[in-house]
């Protein structure tokens, strides 16, 4: 009997503490696997796992706790179904820019549309993409990201710097392409 009540209490707590992070869970999975249906399956599986391990949750940041499970589930999915996407390298040649200096680049980044940003983020290698998503869309600190992704804080900092640089290069390149098509 006491076990039953404990389980009911746990289920109630799970609903209050973990279920509200559904959007964050879906957002991360969706950006990692870049597909709506797969992301939904991954989130559902993550929630099943989270429920199973919930008794081991010691309190603290429940969003980070859930996102860690979502991240692991997403990577397992990618390894199994799309190993190539984990090995994606940034093609320096494709994205090399010959635009006229930093001023011109700033102008190009200005007023960029959501659609282009979305495509540019999707084109980034997964390790840069995930850190940018956690930082800019989830508003996580370097420390939180370091714990979630399991890398030193210095790596978070350098990955953000490189990820943002590459994102800009992709955008500048995309704009040039659109521009040349227009003429």
């Amino acid at each position: 009997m006491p076990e039953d009540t404990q389980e009911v209490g746990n289920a109630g707590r799970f609903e209050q503490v973990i279920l509200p992070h559904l959007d964050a869970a879906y957002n991360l999975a969706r950006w990692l696997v870049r597909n709506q249906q797969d992301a939904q399956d991954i989130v559902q599986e993550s929630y099943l796992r989270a429920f199973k391990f919930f008794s081991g949750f010691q309190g603290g940041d429940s969003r980070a706790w859930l996102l860690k499970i979502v991240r692991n589930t997403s990577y397992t999915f990618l390894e199994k179904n799309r190993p190539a996407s984990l090995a994606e390298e940034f093609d320096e040649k494709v994205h090399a820019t010959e635009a006229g200096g930093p001023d011109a680049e700033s102008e190009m980044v200005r007023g960029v549309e959501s659609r282009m940003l979305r495509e540019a983020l999707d084109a980034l290698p997964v390790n840069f993409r995930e850190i940018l998503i956690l930082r800019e869309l989830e508003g996580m600190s370097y420390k939180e990201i370091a714990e979630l992704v399991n890398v030193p804080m210095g790596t978070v900092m350098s990955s953000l710097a490189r990820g943002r640089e590459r994102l800009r290069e992709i955008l500048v390149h995309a704009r040039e392409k659109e521009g040349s098509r227009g003429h």
Partner: protein
Amino acid sequence: MATDPYTPLLHAYLDSELDLVRSLELEEHMKSCPDCAQEIWTQQTLRQGLRSGNLYHRAPAGLEARIRASLPLENKVIEMPRRNFWNWVAVAAAIVVALVLTWRMLPSFLGRSQTDLLAQEVVSSHIRSLQPGHLMDVESTDQHTVKPWFNGKLDFSPPVKDFAEDGFPLKGGRLDYIDHRPAAALVYQRQKHFINVYVWPESEARDRPARLESAQGYNIAFWERGGMYFCAVSDLNTGELQQFAQLLQQ
């Protein structure tokens, strides 16, 4: 391109992760290095795009029900009825939904929806409040100072709680006027961002979870709870604003 040894530091500076000494050092360096100053400007522009564009993927409708159904939780979503009688109920419900939708969408045929107008109104109020000297009538991080301050100024008592431990300290409050009635405005801060929370009583007591909107680059969360209407506005990103809205709803 920014001067090499400074590049990663620029990003830490941009993310408010640099200690004071190095922040000052970098600011000093930027005065004499137009490349670094330019880089910061570019990255800030890029960040604005990332945060204000609709890049956040919210969970699609139905996913929560699917998850709830797969877990041994207490509040399951009612399964879809199959019997004949229920078919009629479904038809009736569909008619009601259609009527309600028509009624709800009517304002958007005439102009814009009520929510849009409300979003516009709170964003304007938020911007106005950030002008010098407009933000707070009562300045205090103590909820027991801010809450009683509203006594006698409003015909309701807004719930006031400090969330300093969660990184959203209470800064104060003021009186405001939203949706044709006086409202309490509570001011919170997240790092360098201010959050205005508008609270006013609702005629019908119903609880509704937070939904998010954005207008003019600001994010807005609306929810209803315990007979009160809540509306949080900020230039914070969607994730943080959502986290904050959840704290307030607990």
